[in-house]
């Protein structure tokens, strides 16, 4: 009995380790690559023993890419900044628009509410490129092409349905009686929304915000089509590492590491909202 449970414990640990290794290995390898030169990366057989160098990071931060063909200008740092601004801006706008909408869809039954909610979700059904081509023409006509405002607007196609549908579910899960109780106590519906519904849906809002941020951050096609060089995020900017004299693996790796960091930081920050089970003990189950 004891024997099997110990064996089981060991096997379970081994299995978990294997899974972690499987998923984390590429990240681990990329982190290693980011501290190597192209030569050490490409040697056969590959080895984890090398002399670490910060040259990749220096190149990215200073914006000077040294290649065999000469010095190339890259604006990775401004790409990173663009990614941050576009993603954060999109999520902010998405939350401002999406949370009240989610509350309305979740709480108030009005004519056509399901249809409207579904239509919003259907934005995600269409291939983005199909939407983008006509949109480019419109945007050029009304002067929104190649503006942060225009990009954030288009990013809502990704961000808004996600926030709307996730947060709506959380609002629906709040027992209506809790909100009724607050209103009967004499508070307006807005005050009820702000002090009761919003805090109770916070885990959902955090999850939706984080997911939306990741989706916005990883978006490639919108910015590729709609933005010029100075407004492009890292996803598009990374194309610059494919140079005439070959692919700069070291810089690509360093770029990946740098572009993971903001999302990682956000995920760690959002975690405490994600795990909080606030609805506990509200009503008798």
């Amino acid at each position, binding site marked *: 009995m004891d024997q099997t449970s110990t064996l089981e414990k060991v096997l379970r640990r081994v299995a978990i380790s294997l899974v972690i290794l499987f998923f984390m290995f590429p990240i681990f390898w990329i982190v290693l690559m980011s501290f190597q030169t192209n030569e050490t990366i490409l040697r056969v057989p590959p080895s984890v023993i090398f002399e670490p160098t910060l040259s990749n990071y220096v190149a990215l931060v200073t914006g000077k890419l040294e290649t065999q063909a000469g010095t190339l200008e890259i604006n990775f740092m401004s790409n990173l900044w663009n990614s941050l601004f576009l993603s954060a801006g999109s999520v902010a706008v998405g939350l401002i628009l999406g949370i009240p909408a989610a509350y309305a869809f979740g709480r108030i039954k009005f004519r056509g509410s399901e249809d409207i909610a579904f239509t919003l979700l259907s934005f995600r059904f269409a291939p983005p490129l199909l939407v983008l081509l006509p949109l480019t023409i419109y945007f050029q006509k009304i002067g929104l092409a190649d503006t942060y405002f225009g990009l954030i607007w288009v990013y809502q196609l990704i961000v808004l349905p996600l926030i709307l549908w996730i947060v709506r579910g959380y609002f629906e899960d709040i027992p209506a009686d809790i909100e009724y109780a607050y209103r009967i106590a004499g508070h307006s519906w807005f005050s009820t929304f702000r002090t009761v519904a919003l*805090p*109770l849906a916070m885990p959902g809002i955090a999850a939706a915000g984080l997911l939306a941020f990741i989706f916005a951050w990883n978006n490639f096609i919108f910015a590729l089509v709609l933005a010029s060089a100075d407004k492009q995020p890292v996803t598009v900017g990374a194309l610059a590492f494919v140079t005439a004299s070959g692919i700069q693996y070291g810089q690509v790796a360093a770029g990946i590491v740098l572009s993971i960091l903001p999302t990682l930081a956000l995920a760690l920050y959002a975690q405490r909202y994600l795990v909080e089970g606030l609805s*506990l*003990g*509200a009503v*008798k189950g």
Partner: protein
Amino acid sequence: MSIQLSNIRKSFANDLVLDGVSLDIPTGETLVLFGPSGAGKTVLLRLIAGVVDPDEGRIIVNGVDMDGVVPEDRGIGMAFQNFALFPHMDAHANIASPLTARRETRSGIETRVREVAKLLKIDHVLGHTPAELSNGQKQRTALGRALAAEPSILLLDDPLRNVDAKLRFEMRLELPRLLKAQNATVIFVTQDYKEAMALGDRIAVMGDHGIVQIGTPEEIYLCPSSTRIARLFGDPTINLLDVVPEIGVQGPVVQLSATDVAISGSYAGAVGKACSLGIRPEAIRFVAPGAPGAFPVEIEAETPLNEKTVTLAATRNHREILVSRPAGTPGPDHGKAHVAIDMGNALLFDRATGARIIAADAPTDEMAT
């Protein structure tokens, strides 16, 4: 404040809950809504609170039509059956919520919350969140929240349902005093007939999409309008014996154990009709053979409860009767015995419809001998 409901109709997606409900509750009265689950008691409270709107009908509070008045402007205190506490606020903030809405001063709120908490004996757990409270404490927090702002209308939705027996008994004793002190008009929902009898100035029995009988606890207990209501009140439940009244020597009689037992002369109109004779267990006594109205029974079992002894007896053709007598009073516990019915408290119901047959005269304690 007085509450008037007239002709309220409410359905949820083709499911008719209330139809033609009218109710008049004078200021300061405690009205108990009593009935099985699904009878629409909670819906009625929600209609009055304004969180649900009626399909038809009017709700008038103190002469003002509540149509279009939002819940927060109705000045009502409500305790939900499921507590509906704010899980992210501690008990103190929960109780204080009606006071903060009225923008009272911080010290005023503090004083009032302490006062209410002390009254409900939860002043030691004010800093706890609902998750950290026991069911009884949650229930009292919810009650405290309803009482905090001293509303002139209190809607209490089965507030004692989820608490343990001891606390329920305590609260049943304390609540009337507490409610009277508030001088509020109270609507109290319950499924427990003892609670209804203990707390209500009047009881409205609900069923069939509306109110089937309304009256004082005594009226409901002694003169239920149908067998269904008669069964809901009383423990042990009322005896219902199928009888067909006949013309006896001195007036209408019913056959029990092949004995003619006289019933009130005012039931003469029911002769020949299929009826149910309703007798409360405490309206049956053991008597000596030959006593007026006595008929023989066979005792099957006896259950001594603490305050009363309940005997199960059978008539000659095996109809079972429950007889209840105060504990300690003498009575047979086995074999054959004779019982007599206190006919003043016996009720006659139409067997087909279950409706009570109203005696031609007001029921008197005339015992045909």
